[in-house]
């Protein structure tokens, strides 16, 4: 039992190392683009336009959008890391290396998810450092900040895994990020408070899960939020659990991997 546990631990370490090695090897595709994109957001939205907008939620516009932009990077990168890595391994059939080995489905999933989470957090760290060139930042509640950013990264890493399992070609791995994640993120309170919206659209916005994540993170950094933090964290825990179980079901059934 103990040896099986340590074998699984080594397997997990192996998968995580391989995932980290992958995204750091191709850093020009994985770590550099979000840094450039976010620097442009800071310059254009935060500095040039933000100065004319004035304050929001009691903070300068730049301070207000920084948590949202960090979350935007985490969401995009956690998702795309897992979806592209796992789909590539399916496409090259190197996923068979894992499937013929005694690694448990939980270890496979946690390994890939950790890869996505670590890339999300690495990009978050880069974007945070960049933001310090434009504004000062203080953390209002460290625990909430760490919990929300980790849960968000985990949720989107698991989402990316599901997308990769169902994907049959490279088009299938870009549909969700382009047509689902990007609109939900832009409409998820990254750039504005939903107080600015009419009551009807405020209600509609509440159905956007990304709004809850962004606001929960903003609360951790700035101490202001459009939503209740307890509800947001609860929803995230439920979402992470449901996605985890879905992924495990897919791995056990071998969908898209076993004939």
């Amino acid at each position, binding site marked *: 039992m103990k*040896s099986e546990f340590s074998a699984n631990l*080594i397997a997990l370490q*192996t*998968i995580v190392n391989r995932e980290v*090695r992958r995204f750091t*090897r191709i850093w020009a595709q994985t770590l550099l683009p979000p840094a450039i994109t976010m620097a442009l957001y800071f310059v254009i939205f935060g500095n040039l336009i933000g100065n004319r907008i004035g304050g929001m939620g009691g903070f300068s516009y730049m301070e207000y959008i920084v948590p949202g932009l960090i979350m935007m990077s985490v969401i995009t990168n956690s998702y795309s890391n897992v979806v592209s890595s796992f789909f590539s391994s399916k496409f090259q059939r190197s996923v*068979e*290396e894992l499937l013929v080995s*005694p690694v*448990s489905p939980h270890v496979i999933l946690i390994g890939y998810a950790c890869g996505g989470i670590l890339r999300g957090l690495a990009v978050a760290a880069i974007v945070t450092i960049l933001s310090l060139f434009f504004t000062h930042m203080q953390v209002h509640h460290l625990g909430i900040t760490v919990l929300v950013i980790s849960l968000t990264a985990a949720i989107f890493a698991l989402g990316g895994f599901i997308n990769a399992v169902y994907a049959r070609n490279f088009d299938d791995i870009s549909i969700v990020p382009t047509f689902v994640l990007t609109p939900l993120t832009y409409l998820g309170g990254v750039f504005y408070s939903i107080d600015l919206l009419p009551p009807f659209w405020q209600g509609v916005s509440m159905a956007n899960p990304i709004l809850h994540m962004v606001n929960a993170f903003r609360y951790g950094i700035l101490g202001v939020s459009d939503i209740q933090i307890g509800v947001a964290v609860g929803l995230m825990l439920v979402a992470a659990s449901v996605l985890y179980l879905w992924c495990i079901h897919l791995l056990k059934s071998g969908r898209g991997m076993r004939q």
Partner: protein
Amino acid sequence: MSKALSIRQLTKTYGNGFHALKGIDLDVAEGDFFALLGPNGAGKSTTIGILSTLVNKSGGEVSAFGHDLDQDPAGLKRCLGVVPQEFNFNQFEKTFDILVTQAGYYGIPARVAKERAEEYLTQLGLWDKRDTPSRMLSGGMKRRLMIARALIHKPRLLILDEPTAGVDIELRRSMWTFLTELNRQGISIILTTHYLEEAEQLCRNIAIIDHGRIVENTSMRQLLQKLHVETFILDVKQSLSKAPVLAGYPVRLISEHSVEVQVDKSLGINDLFVQLNAQGMEVISMRNKANRLEELFVSLVEKNLAKGKQ
């Protein structure tokens, strides 16, 4: 002797309704070098796919060294090393990293994995390619890399699905030597191949699968004894305008200096030479028209085909 592999009533029906396996029974003894032969689409790769858990079975039971596929898949997987027919490693990873990563999946600590990777890469002549991304390797090198990868966790049963396909003869023979040595060390081996000479040379026992059924399962020696007639090509010194008449031996003229002769085992070959001598013909060289196993294989598959049509 204990069983390395036991298969009972194994069936597989694919989603499109194709019955790839129709109830296969197969036993491979520990330490055996076993050939699984069959024409394309016979069910060999499906069988290997099920053993390696890449194909879900429709029915039946499979166990390796007592580890049941349904009850203890992890235990079964630890016993098996699989060399698939098609390359399936990460094209961007380095040769050395592929082996160390694979070892990690089996819970082997990095230090031990690195030692083993060096050992197998050296044995298979790939050590100087350790830092080369796998996509840059030649076809033969990729095949050897897949063998090294399958061995990295020291499996008790090695399954090779056409390991020498597309490999030049020199390399093929060096792989035969390597596999024979592995078998001598106690690793049970199951081999599928299209080179029947390879199966005849390496394997002690054999099963022939066709249309999802086992049509023959015996020792190589016993199977070859079933061969009643062998066909030889004789190269003769004299110029021939027509085939010589040899009592009891059907002869066909192939070219001016060579003939094809069918030899019934009951007659033997001595009388053939006596008759040729009597006709003043000098034989320069003699060879089998086809590999002996190939003749049997073709006749078995044709027989099975005829049975299927009836």
